[in-house]
């Protein structure tokens, strides 16, 4: 027997009393709309957010510490696990920082493949953002369509690298291996069908009046504040700032591709949404151009002391075998120095600060995650909005907690 309910006295007085003007609500860390384990401490006045204090660190695994104990080539697998929606972007930032220190020249074919894979990954990342941010606001249907498209891209990435979520496909000095047979056709097939999928998304959401009501004028940040808070990527372009590192600090041959930088002027959730939707079309354009440029050639730099030799060479040449042994057993020494290399990841500027002391392990690796910085601006956007709009704002920031907490 015993229901504790029997012992509770109804307190009608308390019901009659008005709410105190402010209450604190802890949103997360298990809240589904926080995209992982983000906790927000919300100070509320009724339903209005007076203060929002993000609390992060639930996924902290000490990755930056781990880099210092791993050889340069071993660090690549750690980067996969940071922004797990855009692992190839993380790979690229990391290996390019190391290549900058080593002064390696990357062959043309490897660079084209890097661009191609990164843009596919960007589409996949935006698909997750689109699906989940709609889901947060109660629109369930788009989620299934977007994950269908993402699945196709993950299959393509798997065919090349062997991993779906953790490809580790880019290596210092080039790629893990060349593309498999039939890869071009798979990408072509995806490219052919993708515009139809975009049409579907537009039909479902972009023209939807409920969506307009939920997003327009919500979570506004001014242009000056956006730059001051260090917003990058689609979040900054949603403020009308034309900044895209693929164009303005080009890397991996992006300066030779023809694409537009979509911007929207309003700085609200709707602007950030539109920028990403238009970016999908630009990525589609870049993948198509990259596919046309794929010409046979080497995919690894000519640096036998850094790049693992081909399997076949190891069977025939003594020196290849020695290099292989030394790279695996001892690693390669990277000249002393420090670099900061930034790329345009799907969420914004992904910067890698790498410092070498001349040995086979880095002295310091720091990741400037775009999600980390974009999330720090959340209070500015959310204060003065409703709780339900906070969910929309988090969705529009497109954060990944794996990268924030590292």
């Amino acid at each position, binding site marked *: 027997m015993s229901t504790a309910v029997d012992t509770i006295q109804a307190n009608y007085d308390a019901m009659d009393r008005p709410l105190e003007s402010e209450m604190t609500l802890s949103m997360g860390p298990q809240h589904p709309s926080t995209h992982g384990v983000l906790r927000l401490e919300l100070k509320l006045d009724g339903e209005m957010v007076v203060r929002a204090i993000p609390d992060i660190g639930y996924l902290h695994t000490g990755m930056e510490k781990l880099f210092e104990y791993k050889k340069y080539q071993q660090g690549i697998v750690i980067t996969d696990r940071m922004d797990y929606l855009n692992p190839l972007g993380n790979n690229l930032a990391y290996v390019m920082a190391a290549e900058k220190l080593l002064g390696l020249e990357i062959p043309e074919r490897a660079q084209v493949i890097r661009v191609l894979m990164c843009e596919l990954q960007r589409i996949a990342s935006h698909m997750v953002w689109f699906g989940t941010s709609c889901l947060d606001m109660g629109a369930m249907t788009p989620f299934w369509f977007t994950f269908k498209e993402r699945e196709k891209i993950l299959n393509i990435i798997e065919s090349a690298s062997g991993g779906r979520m953790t490809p580790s496909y880019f290596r210092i000095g080039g790629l893990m291996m060349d593309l498999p047979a039939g890869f071009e056709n798979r990408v072509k097939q995806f490219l052919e069908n993708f515009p139809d999928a975009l049409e579907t998304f537009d039909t479902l959401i972009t023209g939807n009046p409920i969506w307009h009501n939920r997003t327009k004028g919500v979570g506004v940040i001014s242009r000056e504040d956006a730059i*001051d808070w260090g917003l990058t990527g689609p979040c900054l372009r949603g403020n009308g700032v034309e900044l895209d590192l693929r164009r303005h600090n080009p890397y991996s041959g992006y300066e030779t591709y023809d694409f537009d930088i979509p911007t929207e002027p309003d700085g609200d959730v709707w602007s950030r949404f539109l920028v990403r939707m238009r970016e999908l079309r630009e990525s589609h354009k870049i993948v198509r151009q990259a596919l046309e440029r794929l010409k046979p050639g080497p995919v690894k730099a000519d640096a036998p002391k850094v790049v693992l030799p081909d399997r076949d060479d190891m069977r025939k040449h003594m020196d290849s075998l020695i290099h292989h042994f030394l790279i695996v057993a001892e690693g390669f020494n990277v000249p002393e120095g420090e*670099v900061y290399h*930034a790329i345009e990841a799907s969420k914004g500027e992904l*910067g890698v*600060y790498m410092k070498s002391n001349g040995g086979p392990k880095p002295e*310091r690796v720091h990741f400037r995650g775009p999600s980390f910085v974009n999330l720090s601006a959340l209070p500015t956007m959310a204060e003065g909005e409703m709780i339900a709009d906070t969910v929309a704002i988090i969705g529009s920031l497109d954060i990944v907690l794996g990268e924030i907490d590292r």
Partner: protein
Amino acid sequence: MTTSLHDFVEKIRAENADWVQDVKDAHGEVTVTTPREAIADICRFLKADHGFDMLADLCGADRGPEDDPRFEVNYHLFSTRHYSRLRLKVLLTEDDPTVPTVTGVWKTADWHERETYDLVGVIFDGHPDLRRILLPSDFDGHALRKDYPLRGYEPYSMN
């Protein structure tokens, strides 16, 4: 590319000759080592007069317990107008790892400085809310210091 970056260095030097202690040019990046007392003033000067309106990154590093100065803080400045990057570096000793905050110059420095305080143990003077950000508030030590072990157990409490 780096010639235009050296122009900025010259402009800092023209403003105040003491602000530039050392200049390094490597891998297409220019690093200016500056005295720590002046860092906020230099940042304010570069932001106001030379278009470095964004702090792309701020990170600390530990050079190891034997080195003196032991710590360094790197400021990666970026401009959304001329798209150039400049790195400012401040060196700190183990006895006194404090540096003035730049949260008054760029708001984004808030979380970067908290992270650096949390993991490297650099104290940012004048920071409005210098708490740990990634590790729990009762964590002992600073995980990214070279003398902090990679493995081991930290007694954990729910306080």
